[in-house]
């Protein structure tokens, strides 16, 4: 949910953009952290851990704790609390450690 009216703050948001969460098209604002856009859509589970498969959301929101790792445009372990949203991004929940890409 988004705050539309606030007694003190005037939110200046970027352009409205579409992006994909696990293949499903969702909306957000350009430049805001991916985690904020997901949260506004009610999506709180960002990954499942490698040992116990436990769900994780964000925790610190400043890029410090690595609780929020997701796969973004094929790249695993992206901290979505500090990664800016762009039009057409493919964001996926991550399971486990995330594989290294083969560059060859």
């Amino acid at each position: 949910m988004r705050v539309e009216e606030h007694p003190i703050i005037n939110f200046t948001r970027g352009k409205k953009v579409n992006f994909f969460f696990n293949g499903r098209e969702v909306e957000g604002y350009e430049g805001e952290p991916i985690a904020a856009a997901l949260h506004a859509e009610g999506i709180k589970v960002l990954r499942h851990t490698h040992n116990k498969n436990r769900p994780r959301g964000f925790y610190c929101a400043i890029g410090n704790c690595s609780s929020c790792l997701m796969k973004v445009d094929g790249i695993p372990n992206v901290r979505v609390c500090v990664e800016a949203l762009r039009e057409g991004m493919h964001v996926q929940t991550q399971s486990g450690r995330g594989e290294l890409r083969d560059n060859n």
Partner: protein
Amino acid sequence: MITTDIVVIGAGPAGLNAAITAASMGANVLLLERNVLEGGQLIKQTHKFFGSKAQHAAARGIDIAKALYQSASQYPNVTMKFGATVLGYYEDGVITAEHHESIITIKAKKYIVATGAAEKSLPFPNNDLPGIYGAGAVQTLTNVYGVLPGKKVLMIGSGNIGLIVSYQLLQAGVQVAGIVEAAPEIGGYLVHAAKIRRAGVPIYTSYTIKEAYGTEMVEGALIMQLDKNWQPLSGTEIDIPVDVVCIAVGLTPLTELLWQAGCKMKYVPQLGGHIPVRDENLTTTVSDIYVAGDVSGIEEASAAMVEGKLAGAAAASSLGYGSGKFAEIRREALAQLAELRSGPAGAKIRKGLKLLVG
């Protein structure tokens, strides 16, 4: 490799003041900040600041951040890079930073580390469920991006952060189910607590969180009372259904770079954990590295700003800039710090600082 006189790491109130002061004395300054926004913790602080006039009291944190940034931008000898995370400090005094997906190397004559602090976590069953967030994280989500964390929040911790974030959540239209405090007394200023109580939010002192529950996300928490010896009293559990639990149990300094550089560190619980040993001018035991703000011990933005000025002036003066100005700036800064740390509110900080020296 980039070379300069002074590199400041972190653009919070401490780092911005350090850059402004050093630049005003004539030094060339490069300011590196990992966030894309300037101001550190200030960017989410919509409340009017406490403290004294000299440190912008009664102004809102968000406005202080803007004013400091504008003042730093006016100096041609200040360069600022945002989205630049400092990764490492090497033996030869070179640092590396990630900036726009490439690695840059920088060599400065002096470094001022002003990296601030991170929120602490708290151990209890299911503390990793989505919906359990740091209070500052929730403040960022709500006040910077205008996204609500959920419908109903349980706040753990009644220090100023717990109180202020609770109040700001109410302002944004979120319900606050209660504030839980393990100590027998409220930790933060009573003026803040009174505002929250007037809004009908209960503050449970001598209570702790026993566990959170939920399957994919938090659905509620059990809290329970503590006796005089901080032991849980069985049979006192209260079940509070909420979709968000905020943890506001204090901050801990972000000191990784200082450890890496070999600065001597000391454990001072009153100041948030391990902090760098330094002299009165905020020089660490590695003589080219200065510290300022929360990284050198958790206080408040007011103290961070004054420390920034002092460290900036000390670093610039050690390189021969602004001759004559340093003594004056130093005298003023030390007097302001003494004033900020005076009285009962500063007792804990004074005790911590004493431990650091002794």
